[in-house]
């Protein structure tokens, strides 16, 4: 394996980068994974299966508010898992309201207890953190709760929370450091605002909340907070859900507005001040219009920033080993085998340039990469037609092209869009909206009316979308879809 390493490396390049640090000729580990999230853990466990000596370094730099968490990465701790659980909490609130129409009688008013929900969610997350540690220990993967950064070729420095530094070497590295929420760079943002990193473990109910941003994180959080009975406002700079089908994005926004979430459009915050301390306290936000000189002010108990996430690639010593990053975004460009410009260093997950930021994508990429490295496999990760779901109050599932992108790529005359509104049976009795749920498919006329985009807005959108994603991967055409008899009565039959 030492021989293979020498062939892969470019000794010339190594000396350019750091002439003083010697390249070790035997390594502590076969593989070091920096980042113990969805991608990192999947890759590490897979490599251990092939008998490789693997180390995982995971470290969470606390948020400005002091929040931190255990092994597992964003998804498990401050992303998909707590988000979906809190979304479920909000849905259950709605279900309680609906239940009266189905004959359930209860005289007490229904209230929500933030602490009860948060404790249950955090307990579950704790069991996942523990489960990952057991899994790593059981598969003999070395795990260190330490911050990893490159200091020279094949060499990494790991600093634990007590400041103790250790050096490790490996034949190969996988960078899977993920992202963290972006701040606004305005007065008061770090002192007073929270982000999704803080929300899911907040030790007090956030109260009247302003959500800044129009990302899916912003809309999902605004959605469940409102569903739990809180007064929620969303401040949007321009459009909702950039990158998603805009027709669907607007429908989501409309639904949220009609269900009590306030929107302030075309404004950006310029200052956050504290009016009163407390848990929660009272914050005053000053915002400026993006279309004129108008300035507005508002008071809220909590301001949640959800304006984007930045890759954790700028402080891990990539310059010491010559790994190129996109200076503007911090993302790492890789080839279709997840390899960076340095042959023995790979990258997976949210930090990749031009790839979807989703847990299952990172997991798949990590596993396939490791199989190619150590098990002689050749399969590369297929990033096309990856299904996703946005868990806003009205859920949105999608797979494939948005309408705009399909028009751009194939030309308006070459695509056909089939769409319909539907009224879920479960919504009829409690008299819920009858014209909000919606589904559309986008077909490529020139290719047998192949389905190239699938979009559905309605309950259980994620469950509905998963099956269609498999069909699209098999080359589903409109005719095949028409010939598939529906299940009745379910939303998916539309």
């Amino acid at each position, binding site marked *: 394996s030492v021989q293979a390493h020498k062939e892969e490396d470019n000794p010339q390049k190594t000396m350019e980068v750091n002439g003083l640090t010697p390249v070790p000729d035997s390594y502590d580990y076969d593989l070091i994974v920096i980042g113990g999230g969805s991608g990192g853990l999947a890759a590490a466990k897979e490599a251990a299966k092939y008998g490789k000596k693997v180390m995982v370094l995971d470290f969470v730099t606390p948020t400005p508010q002091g929040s931190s968490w255990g092994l597992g990465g964003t998804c498990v701790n401050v992303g998909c898992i707590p988000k979906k659980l809190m979304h479920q909490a909000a849905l259950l609130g709605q279900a309680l309201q609906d239940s009266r129409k189905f004959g359930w009688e209860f005289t007490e008013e229904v209230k929500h207890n933030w602490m009860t929900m948060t404790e249950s969610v955090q*307990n*579950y997350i*704790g*069991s996942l*953190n*523990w489960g990952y*540690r*057991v899994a790593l*220990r*059981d598969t003999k993967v070395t795990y260190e709760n330490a911050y990893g950064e490159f200091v020279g070729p094949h060499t990494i420095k790991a600093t634990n929370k007590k400041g103790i530094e250790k050096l490790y070497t490996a034949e190969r590295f996988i960078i899977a450091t993920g992202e963290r929420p972006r701040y606004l760079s305005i007065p008061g943002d770090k002192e007073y605002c929270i982000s999704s990193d803080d929300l899911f473990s907040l030790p007090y109910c956030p109260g009247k909340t302003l959500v800044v941003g129009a990302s899916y994180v912003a809309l999902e959080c605004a959605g469940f907070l409102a569903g739990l009975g809180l007064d929620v406002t969303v401040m949007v700079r321009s459009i909702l859900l950039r990158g998603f089908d805009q027709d669907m994005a607007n429908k989501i926004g409309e639904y949220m507005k009609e269900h009590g979430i306030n929107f302030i459009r075309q404004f950006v915050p310029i200052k956050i001040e504290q009016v009163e301390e407390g848990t929660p306290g009272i914050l005053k936000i000053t915002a400026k219009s993006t279309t004129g000189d108008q300035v507005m002010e508002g008071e809220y108990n909590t301001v949640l920033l959800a304006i984007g996430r930045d890759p954790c690639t700028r402080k891990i010593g990539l310059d010491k080993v010559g790994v190129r990053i996109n200076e503007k975004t911090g993302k790492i460009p890789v080839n279709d085998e997840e390899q960076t410009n340095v042959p023995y260093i790979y990258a997976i997950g949210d930090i990749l340039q031009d790839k979807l930021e989703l847990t299952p994508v990172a997991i798949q990429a990590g596993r396939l990469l490791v199989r190619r490295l150590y098990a002689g496999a050749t399969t590369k990760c297929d990033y096309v037609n990856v299904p996703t779901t946005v868990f806003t109050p009205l859920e949105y599932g999608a797979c494939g092209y948005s309408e705009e992108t399909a028009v751009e790529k194939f030309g308006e005359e070459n695509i056909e869009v089939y769409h319909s509104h539907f009224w879920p049976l479960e919504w009829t009795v409690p008299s819920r909206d009858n014209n909000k749920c919606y589904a559309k498919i986008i077909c490529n006329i020139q290719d047998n009316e192949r389905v190239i985009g699938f979009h559905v807005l309605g309950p259980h959108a994620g469950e509905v979308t998963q099956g269609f994603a498999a069909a699209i991967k098999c080359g589903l055409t409109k005719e095949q879809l028409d010939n598939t008899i529906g299940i009745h009565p379910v939303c998916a039959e539309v």
Partner: protein
Amino acid sequence: MGWVELQVRGYPEFMRTAQSYHGRPIFVLFCGDKDAEGKSWCPDCVTAEPIVRKELHNLPDESVFIYCLVGDRPYWKDPNNEFKKNLKLTGVPTLLKYGTPQKLVEEECFKAELVRMLFTED
């Protein structure tokens, strides 16, 4: 100060004991009852106990180790027994750090490495 071991039997005695040591790290090994010859009806418990006992010297200072006999086999098999209902136990043996989600269940208790990790790491 070192660590201390207590042996209890049944749910009420377990709860009283755990509550009386509130504030100290509490580790609990739940096993099936033992017969007159000291042999448990639960074969996995018979395997796990010596392995767990061998790691006890790793317990942090001030810890409490509770060895808890849950009851006889019919009691354990009843899905509504208090251990299953209130502590959410799913099997015996179970080794856990009380008040945290950290636990090892059944064959996990056979692995000295994992037992050591439970006792020594945060």
